């Protein structure tokens, strides 16, 4: 594992924070406190946290419609997120973006993206900046397995190779794009095979376990930071719930849903770390209760916060300056 106790705590805290945050999003959504469409990250926590674990605020990520987990893993403040998801004026994007457009540029989070395949080209651009400015930083482009069929994503893969920029493509293969399986929608067997067709190294990683994700990401970082060009990971994981909050999931059997839970990355982490006697039960419990408190506070604050004011906010921020 080769992680310090502090690092282990941080990893668990981030994963657990995603878990609690997303369960709370489901709850608040059902209670009518969250408008619109929301896609939660439940079951995939080890992916985001493993991928973002070594990244700094100066490294960039481009995210997807299922972006809450990426935000939290990248260190974005959950209160600002909850405010945004509830459409409040003090949300990260002033309530204008919502769940599908959360961004926090100061944290290197270039935005969730409601267009499947929208982010990877943008991440290539962020990586280009790093290359030209010689910052030694990287950009990470998240896509789903469904997104791995969008032309823009292939273009981004090839462009990254040609421009030789420090970008890491992360394909979160949760077996579904909406209601359709990856096995149906994806010609060939592995997403990794198509990535390799562009001459890019691509590892297939078990995303239900934090440790292999983090280790693969270390290799990816070593590669890209060593100016060896882009790198990719196909991270296999499980989507515990529906495509969106409220999806009745008629296309999945009860059995499948139950089985997916067997791959829960959170107890798996806790078990492994406990068995290795690296963190105590008390320490885990302390993390968990602190996380619960944080999410509670975020929700209380967001529920109480003011909505934007149409008179001033509706037409603001379209341009920096419009003659």
């Amino acid at each position, binding site marked *: 594992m080769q992680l310090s106790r502090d690092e282990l705590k941080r990893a668990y805290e981030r994963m657990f924070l995603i878990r609690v945050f997303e369960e709370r999003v489901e709850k608040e959504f059902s209670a009518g406190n969250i*408008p*619109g*469409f929301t896609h939660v990250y439940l079951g995939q926590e080890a992916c985001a946290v493993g991928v973002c674990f070594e990244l700094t605020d100066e490294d960039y990520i481009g995210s997807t419609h299922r972006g809450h987990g990426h935000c939290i893993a990248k260190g974005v403040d959950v209160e600002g997120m909850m405010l945004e998801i509830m*459409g*409040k*004026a003090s949300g990260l*994007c002033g*309530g*204008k*973006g*919502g769940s*599908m*457009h959360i961004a926090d540029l100061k944290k290197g989070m270039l935005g969730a*993206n*409601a*267009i*499947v*395949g*929208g982010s990877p080209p943008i991440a290539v651009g962020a990586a280009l900046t790093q290359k030209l400015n010689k910052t030694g930083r990287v950009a990470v482009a998240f896509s789903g397995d*469904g*997104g791995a*069929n*969008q*032309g*823009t994503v292939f273009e981004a893969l090839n462009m990254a190779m040609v421009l030789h920029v420090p970008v890491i493509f992360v394909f979160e293969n949760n077996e*579904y*794009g*909406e*209601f*359709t*399986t*990856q*096995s*149906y*929608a*994806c010609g060939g067997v592995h997403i990794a095979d198509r990535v390799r067709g562009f001459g890019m190294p691509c590892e297939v990683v078990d995303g239900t376990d934090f440790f292999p994700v983090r280790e693969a990401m270390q290799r990816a970082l070593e590669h890209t930071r060593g100016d060896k060009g882009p790198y990719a990971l196909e991270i296999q994981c499980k989507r515990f719930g529906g495509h969106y909050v409220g999806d*009745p*999931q*008629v*296309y*999945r*059997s009860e*059995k*499948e849903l139950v089985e997916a839970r067997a791959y829960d990355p959170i107890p798996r982490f806790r078990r492994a770390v406990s068995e290795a006697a690296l963190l105590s039960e008390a320490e885990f419990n302390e993390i968990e209760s602190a996380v619960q408190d944080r999410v509670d506070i975020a929700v209380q604050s967001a529920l109480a916060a003011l*909505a*934007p*004011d*149409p008179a001033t*906010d*509706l*037409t603001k921020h*379209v341009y920096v300056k419009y003659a």
Partner: protein
Amino acid sequence: MSKKTYLQAINEALRQEMRRDSKVILIGEDLVGGHGATGEVGGAGGPFGQMRGLYKEFGADRMIDTPISESAIIGAAAGAALTGLRPVAELMFVDFVGVCFDQIFNQVAKFRYMFGGNARTPLVIRATIGAGKRAAAQHSQTLHPLFTMVPGLKVAMPSNPYDAKGLLIQAIRDDDPVIYLESKSLFGMECEVPDEPYRIPFGEANILREGKDLTIVALGAMVPRAERAAAELAKDGISVEVLDPRTTSPLDEESILESVKKTGRLVVVDESPPRCSLAADIAGMVADKGFKFLKAPIKQVTCPHTPVPFAPILEDAYLPSPTQIEMAARSILD
């Protein structure tokens, strides 16, 4: 005849046309749903339910689920149309047009002209449009001007269940490429809809309310709002004609001009930002061909020149409201 929702009307049109003509196929993302999975295949009936029950009846050959690859969806539909099928392709949200616009505006729209009249491309592209669902900037646009401006495309925009069925059947039987735009916010709207198939010809406006003082032209989800404004104005004895062109291309210029001739005053309501909008298009047309009838400035009531915001209170303010329409009307009445 029976009461049907807008969604049911779309479903019925698809079903009846698929029964009538085996060349009609549907292609898009998750029209069926569940391929390769462990539960029910085709149970959802599409992301919004327009395809409910169709998979059972027509099967996988005619209900084609695709990867998330809109260029390939529209391109494949175009190629199928060019070679003898009559595909109905779906863009789940019209906002996804950006990843496949080439196939729409450079390919399918231009085939017939570029090929000297030798091609026929009976393709329908269905897409959901409109704000109000708190779906934010990339899932709430309307974008009919984007299609209206393209020579070679026809564009239908039903504002009620009756039109939804009649225009969709016309679209499917039409030999030209048709963009058929479904207003998400009208899916639950109900009215009497004949059980048998019928067509509504393109380029024929629907006069929803006759009047003599002022004309309001509105399309899609703006029509009920225009009607509410008209009802409000009627309380003050102002007689408003409400006209729904139903298709933006072709546009029933004649009926609009006819109405303005009678009323001398025009308000155009458009669910889109103002620039190069359909509101501007209609206003510009009337400022030329109907100039002599005009007694007052032509007012356009549109969304502001901004993306669609997420927060409910902002989104509500974004959409043209009955009150705004009413105010615009009052501003040009003496």
